[in-house]
Protein backbone atom coordinates (compact mmCIF):
# COMPACT_ATOMS: atom_id res chain seq x y z
CA UNK A 1 0.00 0.00 0.00
CA UNK A 2 2.95 2.32 0.70
CA UNK A 3 6.59 2.54 -0.32
CA UNK A 4 9.58 4.57 0.82
CA UNK A 5 10.84 7.38 -1.40
CA UNK A 6 14.32 6.71 -2.74
CA UNK A 7 15.71 9.90 -1.17
CA UNK A 8 14.28 9.19 2.30
CA UNK A 9 17.64 8.15 3.75
CA UNK A 10 18.55 4.51 4.08
CA UNK A 11 18.94 3.92 7.83
CA UNK A 12 16.88 0.95 9.01
CA UNK A 13 16.24 -1.11 12.11
CA UNK A 14 15.49 -4.83 12.12
CA UNK A 15 12.03 -5.74 13.43
CA UNK A 16 9.82 -8.82 13.29
CA UNK A 17 6.37 -8.41 11.80
CA UNK A 18 4.23 -11.45 12.56
CA UNK A 19 7.51 -13.30 13.01
CA UNK A 20 8.95 -12.28 9.64
CA UNK A 21 12.12 -10.17 9.65
CA UNK A 22 11.69 -6.70 8.17
CA UNK A 23 14.08 -3.75 7.82
CA UNK A 24 11.98 -0.77 8.90
CA UNK A 25 13.05 2.83 8.27
CA UNK A 26 14.66 4.24 11.40
CA UNK A 27 12.28 6.52 13.27
CA UNK A 28 9.10 5.22 11.67
CA UNK A 29 6.23 3.94 13.80
CA UNK A 30 5.25 0.29 14.20
CA UNK A 31 2.08 0.97 12.18
CA UNK A 32 4.10 2.55 9.35
CA UNK A 33 6.44 -0.46 9.39
CA UNK A 34 3.49 -2.86 9.08
CA UNK A 35 2.05 -0.87 6.15
CA UNK A 36 5.43 -0.67 4.42
CA UNK A 37 5.97 -4.41 4.92
CA UNK A 38 2.81 -4.96 2.91
CA UNK A 39 0.35 -5.86 5.65
CA UNK A 40 -3.09 -4.79 4.48
CA UNK A 41 -4.86 -5.69 7.74
CA UNK A 42 -3.19 -5.25 11.12
CA UNK A 43 -5.96 -6.68 13.30
CA UNK A 44 -9.39 -8.25 13.25
CA UNK A 45 -12.16 -6.70 15.31
CA UNK A 46 -13.34 -8.14 18.64
CA UNK A 47 -17.00 -7.56 17.63
CA UNK A 48 -17.38 -9.34 14.28
CA UNK A 49 -13.86 -10.44 13.39
CA UNK A 50 -13.54 -8.32 10.25
CA UNK A 51 -10.09 -7.09 9.16
CA UNK A 52 -9.00 -3.53 9.94
CA UNK A 53 -5.91 -1.45 9.24
CA UNK A 54 -4.39 1.82 10.50
CA UNK A 55 -6.74 4.65 9.54
CA UNK A 56 -5.70 8.04 11.00
CA UNK A 57 -1.99 7.49 11.84
CA UNK A 58 -2.22 10.20 14.52
CA UNK A 59 -3.50 8.41 17.58
CA UNK A 60 -7.23 9.15 17.53
CA UNK A 61 -8.93 6.22 15.76
CA UNK A 62 -7.44 3.19 17.58
CA UNK A 63 -7.72 1.08 14.43
CA UNK A 64 -3.98 0.32 14.52
CA UNK A 65 -4.12 -1.63 17.80
CA UNK A 66 -1.41 -4.32 17.61
CA UNK A 67 0.55 -6.57 19.91
CA UNK A 68 3.97 -5.03 20.36
CA UNK A 69 6.73 -6.84 22.24
CA UNK A 70 4.10 -9.11 23.76
CA UNK A 71 1.79 -6.32 24.98
CA UNK A 72 -1.60 -6.27 23.24
CA UNK A 73 -3.76 -3.25 22.34
CA UNK A 74 -0.88 -0.89 21.62
CA UNK A 75 -1.52 2.09 19.36
CA UNK A 76 1.03 1.10 16.74
CA UNK A 77 0.93 4.53 15.09
CA UNK A 78 2.33 6.15 18.26
CA UNK A 79 5.21 3.75 18.91
CA UNK A 80 8.52 4.26 17.09
CA UNK A 81 10.25 1.06 15.96
CA UNK A 82 13.24 -0.22 17.92
CA UNK A 83 15.83 -2.86 17.07
CA UNK A 84 14.34 -6.33 17.50
CA UNK A 85 10.79 -5.09 18.13
CA UNK A 86 8.15 -7.80 17.71
CA UNK A 87 5.10 -6.38 15.97
CA UNK A 88 2.18 -8.80 15.74
CA UNK A 89 -1.26 -8.59 14.24
CA UNK A 90 -4.01 -8.83 16.79
CA UNK A 91 -6.90 -11.25 16.28
CA UNK A 92 -10.18 -10.30 17.91
CA UNK A 93 -10.12 -9.60 21.62
CA UNK A 94 -6.75 -9.28 23.30
CA UNK A 95 -5.97 -12.05 25.74
CA UNK A 96 -4.94 -11.15 29.29
CA UNK A 97 -1.68 -12.77 30.36
CA UNK A 98 -1.90 -13.83 34.01
Amino acid sequence: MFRILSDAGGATVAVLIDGRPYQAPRGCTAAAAALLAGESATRTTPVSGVPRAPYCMMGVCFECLMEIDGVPNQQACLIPVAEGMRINRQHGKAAVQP
Partner: protein
Amino acid sequence: MSGGPDLAIVGAGPAGLAAATTAAEHGLNAVVFDEQAEPGGQIYRGIESVAAARNAHLAVLGPDYAAGLELVKRFRASGAEYVPQAAVWQIDAGRNVYYRSRGDVRIINAKQILIATGAMERPLPVPGWTLPGVMTCGAAQTLLKSTGAVPAGRFVLAGSGPLLLLIATQLLRAGVQPAAILETRPNYRAALPHLPRFIATPGYLRKGLAMLAQLRKAGVPFKRGVRQMRILGDERAREIEYEWRGRRERCAVDLVLLHQGIVPNANLALSLRCEHEWNERQRSFRPRLDAWGNSTVPGVLIAGDSGGIIGAKAAELSGRIAALSAACSAGRIGLDVRDRLARPLRRTLAHHLVVRPFLDAFYRPRQETVAPRDDDTVVCRCEEIRAGEIRRLVTGQGCPGPNQMKSFVRCGMGPCQGRLCGLTVVELIAECRDVSPAEVGYYRIRPPVKPVTVGELAGLDLDR
Protein backbone atom coordinates in the same frame (compact mmCIF):
# COMPACT_ATOMS: atom_id res chain seq x y z
CA MET B 1 2.14 19.69 45.25
CA SER B 2 4.91 22.22 45.48
CA GLY B 3 7.46 22.35 42.68
CA GLY B 4 4.87 21.58 39.98
CA PRO B 5 5.03 23.67 36.80
CA ASP B 6 3.36 27.06 36.50
CA LEU B 7 1.84 25.96 33.21
CA ALA B 8 1.24 22.46 31.87
CA ILE B 9 0.61 22.44 28.12
CA VAL B 10 -0.90 19.44 26.34
CA GLY B 11 0.08 19.31 22.68
CA ALA B 12 3.28 20.33 20.88
CA GLY B 13 1.72 21.73 17.73
CA PRO B 14 1.84 25.41 16.74
CA ALA B 15 -0.39 26.59 19.63
CA GLY B 16 1.39 24.56 22.32
CA LEU B 17 4.92 25.36 21.13
CA ALA B 18 4.22 29.07 20.75
CA ALA B 19 2.52 29.19 24.15
CA ALA B 20 5.42 27.40 25.85
CA THR B 21 7.96 29.74 24.25
CA THR B 22 6.05 32.87 25.26
CA ALA B 23 5.38 31.52 28.77
CA ALA B 24 9.08 30.78 29.26
CA GLU B 25 10.03 34.26 28.03
CA HIS B 26 7.95 35.69 30.86
CA GLY B 27 9.49 33.51 33.52
CA LEU B 28 6.87 30.81 33.74
CA ASN B 29 8.02 27.28 34.37
CA ALA B 30 6.23 25.57 31.46
CA VAL B 31 6.10 21.90 30.57
CA VAL B 32 4.76 20.52 27.28
CA PHE B 33 3.30 17.02 27.02
CA ASP B 34 2.90 15.50 23.59
CA GLU B 35 2.08 12.07 22.18
CA GLN B 36 4.61 12.19 19.39
CA ALA B 37 8.35 11.57 19.55
CA GLU B 38 9.15 14.98 18.05
CA PRO B 39 7.69 18.47 18.47
CA GLY B 40 5.58 20.05 15.71
CA GLY B 41 2.14 18.53 16.09
CA GLN B 42 0.46 17.06 13.02
CA ILE B 43 1.01 20.14 10.86
CA TYR B 44 4.79 20.24 11.39
CA ARG B 45 5.08 16.52 12.04
CA GLY B 46 8.67 15.25 11.89
CA ILE B 47 10.01 18.69 10.91
CA GLU B 48 13.32 18.30 12.79
CA SER B 49 14.06 14.90 11.23
CA VAL B 50 13.05 16.04 7.77
CA ALA B 51 15.32 19.08 8.01
CA ALA B 52 18.22 17.03 9.37
CA ALA B 53 18.03 13.77 7.43
CA ARG B 54 15.99 14.29 4.27
CA ASN B 55 16.22 17.92 3.38
CA ALA B 56 14.91 17.30 -0.16
CA HIS B 57 11.50 16.55 1.32
CA LEU B 58 11.18 20.12 2.60
CA ALA B 59 10.59 21.15 -1.01
CA VAL B 60 8.08 18.32 -1.47
CA LEU B 61 6.13 19.37 1.62
CA GLY B 62 6.32 23.07 0.78
CA PRO B 63 7.21 26.39 2.46
CA ASP B 64 4.26 26.40 4.90
CA TYR B 65 5.61 23.16 6.38
CA ALA B 66 9.23 24.31 6.39
CA ALA B 67 8.16 27.43 8.31
CA GLY B 68 7.52 25.20 11.31
CA LEU B 69 11.24 24.68 11.79
CA GLU B 70 11.71 28.20 13.16
CA LEU B 71 8.87 27.70 15.66
CA VAL B 72 10.37 24.42 16.87
CA LYS B 73 13.85 25.96 17.15
CA ARG B 74 12.55 28.82 19.30
CA PHE B 75 10.72 26.33 21.48
CA ARG B 76 13.86 24.18 21.91
CA ALA B 77 15.80 27.29 22.92
CA SER B 78 13.08 28.62 25.25
CA GLY B 79 13.91 26.60 28.35
CA ALA B 80 10.42 25.11 28.50
CA GLU B 81 10.40 21.46 29.53
CA TYR B 82 9.34 18.94 26.88
CA VAL B 83 7.89 15.49 27.60
CA PRO B 84 7.57 13.57 24.31
CA GLN B 85 5.66 10.32 23.77
CA ALA B 86 3.42 11.29 26.65
CA ALA B 87 -0.19 10.18 26.87
CA VAL B 88 -2.10 12.49 29.23
CA TRP B 89 -5.05 10.35 30.29
CA GLN B 90 -6.58 12.61 32.89
CA ILE B 91 -6.51 16.13 34.24
CA ASP B 92 -8.66 16.61 37.33
CA ALA B 93 -10.32 19.68 38.85
CA GLY B 94 -7.27 20.17 41.08
CA ARG B 95 -5.15 20.49 37.93
CA ASN B 96 -3.33 17.24 38.55
CA VAL B 97 -1.99 15.93 35.26
CA TYR B 98 -1.89 12.11 34.98
CA TYR B 99 0.36 10.84 32.21
CA ARG B 100 2.50 8.03 30.88
CA SER B 101 5.68 8.64 28.96
CA ARG B 102 7.81 5.72 27.74
CA GLY B 103 6.67 3.41 30.51
CA ASP B 104 6.98 6.07 33.20
CA VAL B 105 3.62 6.77 34.89
CA ARG B 106 3.29 9.99 36.84
CA ILE B 107 1.10 12.72 38.26
CA ILE B 108 2.20 16.33 38.41
CA ASN B 109 0.27 19.27 39.75
CA ALA B 110 0.22 22.39 37.59
CA LYS B 111 -0.87 25.87 38.59
CA GLN B 112 -2.46 26.44 35.18
CA ILE B 113 -3.34 24.19 32.24
CA LEU B 114 -3.27 24.97 28.53
CA ILE B 115 -5.01 22.50 26.24
CA ALA B 116 -3.60 22.63 22.72
CA THR B 117 -4.66 19.24 21.41
CA GLY B 118 -5.31 20.57 17.92
CA ALA B 119 -7.62 19.06 15.38
CA MET B 120 -8.51 15.72 13.89
CA GLU B 121 -10.07 14.91 10.54
CA ARG B 122 -13.84 14.93 10.54
CA PRO B 123 -15.16 11.39 10.20
CA LEU B 124 -16.40 10.71 6.66
CA PRO B 125 -18.62 7.66 7.11
CA VAL B 126 -19.34 5.99 3.77
CA PRO B 127 -20.10 2.30 3.17
CA GLY B 128 -16.79 0.44 3.18
CA TRP B 129 -14.76 3.10 5.01
CA THR B 130 -13.68 0.52 7.60
CA LEU B 131 -11.94 -1.69 5.02
CA PRO B 132 -8.16 -1.99 5.02
CA GLY B 133 -6.96 0.19 2.15
CA VAL B 134 -9.05 3.14 3.33
CA MET B 135 -7.27 5.82 5.34
CA THR B 136 -7.53 9.55 5.82
CA CYS B 137 -5.66 12.07 3.68
CA GLY B 138 -4.01 13.18 6.91
CA ALA B 139 -2.72 9.63 7.45
CA ALA B 140 -1.01 9.66 4.05
CA GLN B 141 0.43 13.07 4.80
CA THR B 142 1.70 11.82 8.16
CA LEU B 143 3.45 8.91 6.45
CA LEU B 144 5.09 11.32 4.00
CA LYS B 145 6.19 13.76 6.72
CA SER B 146 7.31 11.29 9.35
CA THR B 147 8.69 8.47 7.22
CA GLY B 148 9.10 9.65 3.63
CA ALA B 149 6.54 7.06 2.54
CA VAL B 150 4.05 7.48 -0.33
CA PRO B 151 1.12 5.43 -1.62
CA ALA B 152 2.08 2.51 -3.86
CA GLY B 153 -0.39 1.42 -6.50
CA ARG B 154 -3.58 3.08 -7.61
CA PHE B 155 -5.11 5.57 -5.20
CA VAL B 156 -7.80 8.23 -5.09
CA LEU B 157 -8.46 11.16 -2.76
CA ALA B 158 -12.11 11.61 -1.88
CA GLY B 159 -14.05 14.22 0.08
CA SER B 160 -13.19 17.90 0.23
CA GLY B 161 -11.24 20.61 2.02
CA PRO B 162 -8.05 22.62 1.59
CA LEU B 163 -5.99 19.82 3.15
CA LEU B 164 -7.16 17.36 0.48
CA LEU B 165 -5.80 19.63 -2.24
CA LEU B 166 -2.60 20.25 -0.28
CA ILE B 167 -1.80 16.58 0.21
CA ALA B 168 -2.61 15.88 -3.46
CA THR B 169 -0.03 18.46 -4.57
CA GLN B 170 2.53 17.25 -2.03
CA LEU B 171 2.18 13.70 -3.36
CA LEU B 172 2.57 14.98 -6.93
CA ARG B 173 5.80 16.73 -5.96
CA ALA B 174 6.93 13.47 -4.35
CA GLY B 175 6.41 11.82 -7.74
CA VAL B 176 3.17 9.89 -7.18
CA GLN B 177 0.01 10.66 -9.07
CA PRO B 178 -3.54 10.13 -7.74
CA ALA B 179 -5.81 8.18 -10.13
CA ALA B 180 -8.50 10.78 -9.39
CA ILE B 181 -9.74 13.38 -6.96
CA LEU B 182 -13.39 12.82 -6.09
CA GLU B 183 -14.66 16.01 -4.51
CA THR B 184 -17.92 16.22 -2.62
CA ARG B 185 -19.69 19.38 -3.75
CA PRO B 186 -18.58 22.63 -2.12
CA ASN B 187 -21.14 25.37 -1.30
CA TYR B 188 -20.64 28.07 -3.92
CA ARG B 189 -23.73 30.09 -3.05
CA ALA B 190 -23.22 30.11 0.72
CA ALA B 191 -19.57 31.09 0.27
CA LEU B 192 -20.20 33.87 -2.23
CA PRO B 193 -20.87 36.70 0.28
CA HIS B 194 -17.51 35.96 1.94
CA LEU B 195 -15.57 35.88 -1.33
CA PRO B 196 -14.56 39.59 -1.52
CA ARG B 197 -12.79 39.51 1.85
CA PHE B 198 -11.18 36.20 1.01
CA ILE B 199 -9.83 37.59 -2.25
CA ALA B 200 -8.67 40.76 -0.50
CA THR B 201 -6.51 38.78 1.93
CA PRO B 202 -3.09 38.31 0.36
CA GLY B 203 -1.78 34.80 -0.06
CA TYR B 204 -4.75 32.49 0.41
CA LEU B 205 -6.49 32.69 -2.97
CA ARG B 206 -3.17 32.53 -4.80
CA LYS B 207 -2.24 29.40 -2.86
CA GLY B 208 -5.56 27.73 -3.63
CA LEU B 209 -5.41 28.52 -7.32
CA ALA B 210 -1.78 27.39 -7.53
CA MET B 211 -2.74 24.01 -6.07
CA LEU B 212 -5.62 23.58 -8.54
CA ALA B 213 -3.35 24.62 -11.43
CA GLN B 214 -0.72 22.09 -10.37
CA LEU B 215 -3.28 19.28 -10.30
CA ARG B 216 -4.65 20.30 -13.70
CA LYS B 217 -1.18 20.49 -15.21
CA ALA B 218 -0.38 17.00 -13.95
CA GLY B 219 -3.56 15.74 -15.60
CA VAL B 220 -5.17 14.42 -12.40
CA PRO B 221 -8.88 13.77 -13.13
CA PHE B 222 -10.75 16.16 -10.81
CA LYS B 223 -14.40 15.18 -10.38
CA ARG B 224 -16.28 17.90 -8.56
CA GLY B 225 -19.71 17.21 -7.10
CA VAL B 226 -19.33 13.50 -6.35
CA ARG B 227 -22.14 11.97 -4.25
CA GLN B 228 -23.09 8.66 -2.64
CA MET B 229 -19.64 7.18 -2.44
CA ARG B 230 -19.20 3.58 -1.40
CA ILE B 231 -16.02 1.58 -1.15
CA LEU B 232 -16.18 -2.02 -2.25
CA GLY B 233 -14.02 -4.99 -1.39
CA ASP B 234 -14.01 -8.10 0.77
CA GLU B 235 -10.85 -8.21 2.83
CA ARG B 236 -9.65 -4.83 1.52
CA ALA B 237 -10.70 -1.92 -0.69
CA ARG B 238 -10.82 -2.86 -4.38
CA GLU B 239 -13.14 -0.29 -5.94
CA ILE B 240 -14.81 3.01 -5.19
CA GLU B 241 -18.27 3.64 -6.60
CA TYR B 242 -19.92 7.07 -6.74
CA GLU B 243 -22.43 9.22 -8.51
CA TRP B 244 -21.08 11.98 -10.74
CA ARG B 245 -23.09 14.14 -13.14
CA GLY B 246 -26.07 11.88 -12.71
CA ARG B 247 -24.21 8.65 -13.53
CA ARG B 248 -22.90 5.84 -11.30
CA GLU B 249 -19.19 5.28 -11.90
CA ARG B 250 -16.66 2.83 -10.56
CA CYS B 251 -12.93 3.13 -10.18
CA ALA B 252 -10.49 0.34 -9.28
CA VAL B 253 -8.27 1.26 -6.30
CA ASP B 254 -5.60 -0.09 -4.00
CA LEU B 255 -6.01 2.80 -1.56
CA VAL B 256 -8.69 5.39 -0.84
CA LEU B 257 -7.73 8.52 1.08
CA LEU B 258 -10.72 10.23 2.69
CA HIS B 259 -10.95 13.78 3.97
CA GLN B 260 -13.80 16.10 4.91
CA GLY B 261 -12.13 18.97 6.74
CA ILE B 262 -10.96 19.05 10.34
CA VAL B 263 -12.71 19.46 13.70
CA PRO B 264 -11.41 20.18 17.22
CA ASN B 265 -9.76 17.25 18.97
CA ALA B 266 -11.82 17.85 22.06
CA ASN B 267 -11.83 14.77 24.30
CA LEU B 268 -9.43 16.12 26.93
CA ALA B 269 -11.25 19.46 27.22
CA LEU B 270 -14.61 17.66 27.30
CA SER B 271 -13.39 15.33 30.05
CA LEU B 272 -12.48 18.41 32.12
CA ARG B 273 -16.09 19.62 31.77
CA CYS B 274 -15.05 22.74 29.85
CA GLU B 275 -18.35 23.97 28.43
CA HIS B 276 -18.73 23.43 24.70
CA GLU B 277 -21.21 24.92 22.25
CA TRP B 278 -22.38 23.94 18.78
CA ASN B 279 -20.63 25.86 16.04
CA GLU B 280 -23.09 25.87 13.15
CA ARG B 281 -20.59 27.43 10.73
CA GLN B 282 -18.03 24.64 11.25
CA ARG B 283 -20.58 21.91 12.02
CA SER B 284 -18.74 20.86 15.16
CA PHE B 285 -18.57 21.62 18.88
CA ARG B 286 -16.12 24.16 20.27
CA PRO B 287 -15.28 25.18 23.81
CA ARG B 288 -16.67 28.43 25.17
CA LEU B 289 -13.61 30.70 25.50
CA ASP B 290 -12.96 34.34 26.36
CA ALA B 291 -10.65 36.53 24.28
CA TRP B 292 -7.60 35.15 26.13
CA GLY B 293 -8.45 31.49 25.69
CA ASN B 294 -9.82 30.97 29.20
CA SER B 295 -12.31 28.10 29.26
CA THR B 296 -15.25 27.91 31.66
CA VAL B 297 -13.06 25.89 34.07
CA PRO B 298 -10.85 28.16 36.21
CA GLY B 299 -7.15 27.78 35.45
CA VAL B 300 -7.76 25.92 32.18
CA LEU B 301 -6.96 27.69 28.91
CA ILE B 302 -7.49 26.36 25.38
CA ALA B 303 -5.62 27.55 22.29
CA GLY B 304 -5.28 26.61 18.64
CA ASP B 305 -7.60 24.38 16.65
CA SER B 306 -8.87 22.60 19.78
CA GLY B 307 -10.66 25.88 20.51
CA GLY B 308 -12.36 25.91 17.06
CA ILE B 309 -10.66 25.51 13.68
CA ILE B 310 -8.49 28.55 12.89
CA GLY B 311 -5.45 27.16 11.02
CA ALA B 312 -1.77 26.82 11.97
CA LYS B 313 -0.71 30.48 11.81
CA ALA B 314 -3.69 31.62 13.88
CA ALA B 315 -3.13 28.72 16.28
CA GLU B 316 0.39 29.94 16.95
CA LEU B 317 -0.87 33.44 17.72
CA SER B 318 -3.70 32.20 19.94
CA GLY B 319 -1.09 30.17 21.85
CA ARG B 320 1.00 33.28 22.46
CA ILE B 321 -2.04 35.27 23.59
CA ALA B 322 -3.10 32.52 26.00
CA ALA B 323 0.45 32.35 27.40
CA LEU B 324 0.42 36.11 28.05
CA SER B 325 -2.80 35.64 29.96
CA ALA B 326 -1.25 32.78 31.95
CA ALA B 327 1.82 34.92 32.73
CA CYS B 328 -0.46 37.71 33.90
CA SER B 329 -2.56 35.38 36.10
CA ALA B 330 0.69 34.10 37.63
CA GLY B 331 1.71 37.67 38.45
CA ARG B 332 4.75 37.68 36.13
CA ILE B 333 3.43 40.58 34.04
CA GLY B 334 0.84 43.26 34.73
CA LEU B 335 -2.42 43.78 32.88
CA ASP B 336 -0.94 46.74 30.98
CA VAL B 337 2.02 44.68 29.72
CA ARG B 338 -0.26 41.76 28.83
CA ASP B 339 -2.54 44.03 26.80
CA ARG B 340 0.32 45.89 25.12
CA LEU B 341 2.08 42.66 24.07
CA ALA B 342 -1.16 41.08 22.89
CA ARG B 343 -2.16 44.01 20.67
CA PRO B 344 0.12 43.27 17.67
CA LEU B 345 -0.62 39.54 18.02
CA ARG B 346 -4.35 40.21 17.84
CA ARG B 347 -3.89 42.34 14.71
CA THR B 348 -2.06 39.53 12.92
CA LEU B 349 -4.54 36.97 14.25
CA ALA B 350 -7.45 39.00 12.85
CA HIS B 351 -5.71 39.03 9.47
CA HIS B 352 -5.54 35.22 9.42
CA LEU B 353 -9.12 34.86 10.63
CA VAL B 354 -10.50 36.99 7.78
CA VAL B 355 -10.39 33.98 5.43
CA ARG B 356 -12.22 31.60 7.77
CA PRO B 357 -15.84 32.59 6.96
CA PHE B 358 -15.20 31.87 3.28
CA LEU B 359 -13.38 28.58 3.90
CA ASP B 360 -15.95 27.46 6.50
CA ALA B 361 -18.87 28.22 4.17
CA PHE B 362 -17.28 26.83 1.01
CA TYR B 363 -16.20 23.55 2.57
CA ARG B 364 -19.06 23.16 5.07
CA PRO B 365 -20.08 19.49 4.74
CA ARG B 366 -23.57 18.77 3.47
CA GLN B 367 -26.30 16.98 5.39
CA GLU B 368 -25.89 13.77 3.34
CA THR B 369 -22.15 13.79 4.15
CA VAL B 370 -22.44 14.14 7.93
CA ALA B 371 -25.57 11.97 8.32
CA PRO B 372 -25.04 8.97 6.00
CA ARG B 373 -28.16 8.02 4.01
CA ASP B 374 -27.17 4.38 3.51
CA ASP B 375 -28.38 2.37 6.53
CA ASP B 376 -25.50 -0.05 6.07
CA THR B 377 -22.81 2.59 6.75
CA VAL B 378 -20.77 1.81 9.87
CA VAL B 379 -20.91 4.87 12.15
CA CYS B 380 -19.20 3.63 15.33
CA ARG B 381 -16.15 1.84 13.97
CA CYS B 382 -15.18 0.33 17.33
CA GLU B 383 -18.53 -1.22 18.25
CA GLU B 384 -19.64 -1.66 14.62
CA ILE B 385 -22.91 0.23 14.94
CA ARG B 386 -24.52 1.19 11.62
CA ALA B 387 -26.50 4.26 10.61
CA GLY B 388 -29.71 2.25 10.19
CA GLU B 389 -29.53 0.96 13.75
CA ILE B 390 -28.99 4.46 15.14
CA ARG B 391 -31.96 5.78 13.18
CA ARG B 392 -34.10 2.84 14.32
CA LEU B 393 -33.17 3.42 17.98
CA VAL B 394 -34.07 7.11 17.76
CA THR B 395 -37.32 6.84 15.83
CA GLY B 396 -38.48 3.41 17.05
CA GLN B 397 -37.16 3.21 20.59
CA GLY B 398 -37.11 6.88 21.53
CA CYS B 399 -33.38 7.02 22.19
CA PRO B 400 -33.01 10.81 22.63
CA GLY B 401 -29.27 11.46 22.64
CA PRO B 402 -25.71 10.18 22.26
CA ASN B 403 -25.32 9.24 25.92
CA GLN B 404 -28.46 7.11 25.84
CA MET B 405 -27.12 5.58 22.61
CA LYS B 406 -24.20 4.28 24.68
CA SER B 407 -26.58 2.44 27.03
CA PHE B 408 -28.61 1.02 24.14
CA VAL B 409 -25.81 -0.40 21.98
CA ARG B 410 -22.41 0.69 23.38
CA CYS B 411 -22.11 3.18 20.51
CA GLY B 412 -19.07 5.39 21.21
CA MET B 413 -17.80 3.17 24.03
CA GLY B 414 -15.00 1.41 22.17
CA PRO B 415 -11.29 2.25 22.39
CA CYS B 416 -11.55 5.50 20.40
CA GLN B 417 -14.09 6.80 22.93
CA GLY B 418 -16.39 8.36 20.39
CA ARG B 419 -13.74 10.36 18.56
CA LEU B 420 -14.60 8.74 15.22
CA CYS B 421 -18.39 8.52 15.63
CA GLY B 422 -19.41 11.36 17.96
CA LEU B 423 -20.27 13.99 15.39
CA THR B 424 -22.01 11.50 13.09
CA VAL B 425 -24.14 10.13 15.93
CA VAL B 426 -25.12 13.67 16.95
CA GLU B 427 -26.03 14.62 13.36
CA LEU B 428 -28.06 11.44 12.83
CA ILE B 429 -29.99 11.91 16.08
CA ALA B 430 -30.58 15.60 15.30
CA GLU B 431 -31.89 14.70 11.85
CA CYS B 432 -34.22 11.99 13.14
CA ARG B 433 -35.57 14.24 15.91
CA ASP B 434 -35.64 17.28 13.61
CA VAL B 435 -33.76 19.43 16.13
CA SER B 436 -30.39 21.20 16.09
CA PRO B 437 -27.21 19.33 17.12
CA ALA B 438 -26.96 22.05 19.79
CA GLU B 439 -30.04 20.54 21.43
CA VAL B 440 -28.83 16.96 21.06
CA GLY B 441 -25.48 17.69 22.74
CA TYR B 442 -22.41 15.46 22.73
CA TYR B 443 -21.10 12.36 24.50
CA ARG B 444 -20.17 12.87 28.13
CA ILE B 445 -16.45 12.13 27.92
CA ARG B 446 -14.85 10.70 31.04
CA PRO B 447 -11.23 10.01 31.94
CA PRO B 448 -9.11 8.11 31.18
CA VAL B 449 -9.10 9.77 27.75
CA LYS B 450 -6.16 7.59 26.72
CA PRO B 451 -5.90 3.90 27.64
CA VAL B 452 -4.08 3.07 30.84
CA THR B 453 -3.51 -0.39 32.26
CA VAL B 454 -4.47 -1.52 35.74
CA GLY B 455 -0.79 -2.24 36.31
CA GLU B 456 0.12 1.33 35.43
CA LEU B 457 -2.56 2.68 37.77
CA ALA B 458 -1.34 0.42 40.55
CA GLY B 459 2.19 1.71 40.06
CA LEU B 460 1.19 5.34 40.60
CA ASP B 461 2.79 7.09 43.53
CA LEU B 462 -0.23 8.68 45.19
CA ASP B 463 1.50 9.67 48.47
CA ARG B 464 2.73 12.96 47.27
